């Protein structure tokens, strides 16, 4: 085996550790030395430029994603700059033309706006940020160069800027002007103007050392996502339980993984771990990631199952009947029901609905009755036959103590043999249950449960640069954000529009615009949880989609 692994599309090289490649994976175990990760990987920057920056530090949310798409970072300095200009101060700092500092930075970096030099003395300081003053350190260097400040005085200026202290700023201004006169690089009027910029920048400028740290960390996250996506998603999912809302985090990560073609599966009892795990190709939920289970309970359950496996046979050979009788009474109702509802027992080839009903009947047995069945377990191969046998009093050869117990068991039996509602796993119920206990529906989506006649494509077909010609989706409405228009066309100012997030089984689509006219017409239909057919069109600006028509299903 070669000592180093080289990625084909970017030549990034890594040292390979001892174990051989995982089955079905062509990526061997790789030792990632974060201190020596190259900061110029084109694959990583390509990924960042798409704006698909879930898992990228500081760039996960809407502003960060949009910022990446607009700026198109190509080097680490851009990542640092992005971190600085994304802050609300920069985004809300407008010049006399109504253009924000953030926008200037994006436009100038991409050659869409002229970079005007105010004074050659400033070019070397502001040149790295396209003549936008975005770092506190730049203000310090200007003070040194223009006003002859020493480092301590320049730092006082930075502190005054950082703390936004008006009295300090007034004092420092006087020193600045006096110093500028002495140094003589700029005129007094120019010094006044430059100090004005510095003062204005106090509202939004950021500490460059911080920005660079954030930028490098963000880049490293993007690097991991670009080169080791399966491992990166697994890692982020595992630590999702530390977030304030773990299920929401799981939902976002699973959705993002779908866009990159990475499958995340519900827990599977045949191969169960405590937390998210991967075989290098797909990712599985762990037992503790199911809502309401937790690490302590999950660990006990896994230990129990492993113990029973040793005494009997490997769990991969267990049938549903085996599982029910061997561990059903020891696992606990919450864990059992949620394992069933999230598809954790799907490998046993019994419908979820049937498992729930049979578990309900089994769980209602008295401990003595369960013990009686367990002792004779191999006499039957399904729970109905076992219940038939136990449903006699002891003197009649059964496992029940009294006639009333016999009656109760027989009542349950009659409902198992002739279910009131025929056993059928309904896509709508599966989607709802998985959403409730895993954070997101995985096996199918709510949209799958509805017929629909007009839809033409899936959400996944709409995430790339090239969009389908006709976009009609059959989707569930996940989120609706109303917004009052404050700028743009005058006739729209003050009107309400909305942004939607919708999903189907392939992934979700965010930031779909619903302009005022469409919003007025369709807002009664566009409610969270509703499954609809939505006709989308590409906006004239960029790759954004907006609502054209909506139909109820």
């Amino acid at each position, binding site marked *: 085996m070669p000592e180093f692994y080289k990625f084909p599309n970017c030549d990034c090289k890594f040292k390979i550790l001892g174990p051989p490649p995982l089955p079905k994976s062509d990526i061997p175990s790789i030792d990632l030395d974060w201190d020596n990760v190259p900061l110029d990987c084109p694959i990583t920057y390509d990924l960042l430029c798409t704006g698909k920056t879930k898992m990228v530090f500081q760039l996960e949310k809407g502003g960060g994603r949009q910022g990446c798409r607009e700026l198109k970072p190509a080097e680490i300095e851009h990542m640092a700059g992005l971190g600085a200009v994304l802050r609300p101060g920069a985004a809300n700092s407008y010049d006399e033309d109504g253009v924000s500092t953030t926008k200037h930075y994006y436009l100038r970096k991409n050659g869409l706006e002229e970079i005007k030099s105010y004074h050659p003395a400033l070019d070397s300081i502001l040149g790295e940020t396209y003549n936008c003053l975005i770092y506190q350190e730049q203000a310090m260097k200007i003070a040194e160069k223009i006003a002859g400040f020493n480092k301590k005085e320049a730092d006082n200026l930075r502190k005054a800027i950082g703390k936004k202290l008006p009295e300090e700023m007034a004092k420092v201004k006087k020193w600045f002007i006096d110093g500028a006169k002495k140094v003589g690089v700029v005129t007094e009027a120019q010094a006044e103007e430059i100090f004005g910029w510095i003062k204005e920048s106090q509202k939004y400028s950021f500490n460059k050392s911080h920005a660079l740290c954030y930028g490098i960390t963000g880049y490293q996250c993007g690097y991991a996502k670009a080169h080791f996506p399966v491992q990166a998603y697994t890692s982020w999912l595992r630590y999702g339980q530390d977030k304030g809302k773990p299920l929401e985090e799981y939902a976002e990560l699973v959705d993002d993984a779908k866009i990159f073609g990475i499958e995340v599966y519900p827990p599977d009892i045949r191969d169960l771990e405590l937390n998210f795990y991967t075989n290098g190709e797909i990712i599985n939920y762990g037992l503790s990631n199911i809502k309401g289970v937790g690490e302590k309970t999950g660990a006990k359950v896994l230990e129990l199952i492993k113990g029973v496996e040793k005494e009997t046979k490997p769990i991969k050979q267990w049938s549903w009947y085996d599982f029910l009788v061997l561990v059903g009474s020891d696992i606990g109702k919450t864990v059992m029901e949620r394992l069933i509802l999230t598809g954790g027992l799907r490998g046993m080839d019994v419908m979820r609905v049937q498992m729930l009903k049979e578990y*309900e009947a089994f769980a209602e047995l008295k401990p003595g009755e369960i013990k009686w069945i367990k002792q004779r377990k191999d006499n039957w191969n399904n729970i109905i036959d076992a219940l038939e046998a136990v449903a006699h009093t002891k003197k009649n050869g059964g496992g029940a103590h009294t006639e009333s117990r016999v009656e*109760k068991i027989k*009542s349950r039996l*009659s*409902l198992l043999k002739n279910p009131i*509602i025929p056993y*059928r796993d309904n896509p709508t*119920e599966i989607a709802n249950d998985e959403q409730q206990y895993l954070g997101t529906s995985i096996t199918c989506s709510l949209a799958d449960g509805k017929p629909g006649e007009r839809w033409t494509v899936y959400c996944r077909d709409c995430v790339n640069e090239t969009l389908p010609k006709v976009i009609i989706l059959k989707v569930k409405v996940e989120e609706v954000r109303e917004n009052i228009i404050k700028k743009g066309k005058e006739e729209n100012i003050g009107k309400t529009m909305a942004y939607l997030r919708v999903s189907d089984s392939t992934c979700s689509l965010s930031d779909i615009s619903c302009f005022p006219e469409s919003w007025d017409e369709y807002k009664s239909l566009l*409610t969270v949880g*509703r499954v609809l057919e939505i006709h989308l069109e590409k906006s004239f600006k960029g790759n954004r989609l907006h609502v054209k028509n909506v139909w109820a299903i």
Partner: protein
Amino acid sequence: MINNNFIFVFDFETSGFDPELDEPVQIAGLAIDPHTLTIVPESQFNSLMKPVNIFTGTKQEIQAKWQKSWKAWDVNKKTMGELSKAPLPEHVWKAFSDHVKKYNVGGYAGKPIPAGQNIQGFDLLWADALSRRYKMADKSGRQQLFNTRTILDTLNVTFLWFENSDALEDYKMDTLRKYFGITEDGAHDALKDCEDTARLLIRYLKLHRYYSPKVKFRNAFSNA
């Protein structure tokens, strides 16, 4: 505010009128989609229940208790044979509850709207009693399956349409069947009653939807 809650029509057949003293013998129900006003496919629920108290005791005691409820059997046509083999009410009520919960669209306010003929005066009282009996009631002893803010009792809806007309001699289901041309075959079987009530309710709701936009409600009481 557009209603997104399912409407769940349900009906009990019982051995008498008193939920505390008498027993349920059948429960049926089905869901109506609030957007399309159609019966949701595969939403039907129908099960007999064994009247446990009647079937406790010696043969003679059982016979006597059965005879006491002769009026009920005369109406709902249930037989001793079929009810003696029926599942226990606690199991059927649990199954019914699980079924109804599937039609909750989200949270407390998302519970399905209960509907039926005289459900306020009868069926909801039975739902409360069974919920209490099987420890599924809320703190005030009421059922927790259905929406409590909105109840669609077809008795009330019929009254609103016919209160100033002598077209109907009363508002009983049998009278409404005759009037609206619904067959009486199988009447007083809970599922048949649910289906007929659902069809009636759907007809009423469609009528409301047709007329509602034509009425000027806004500022109807203002002086302007």
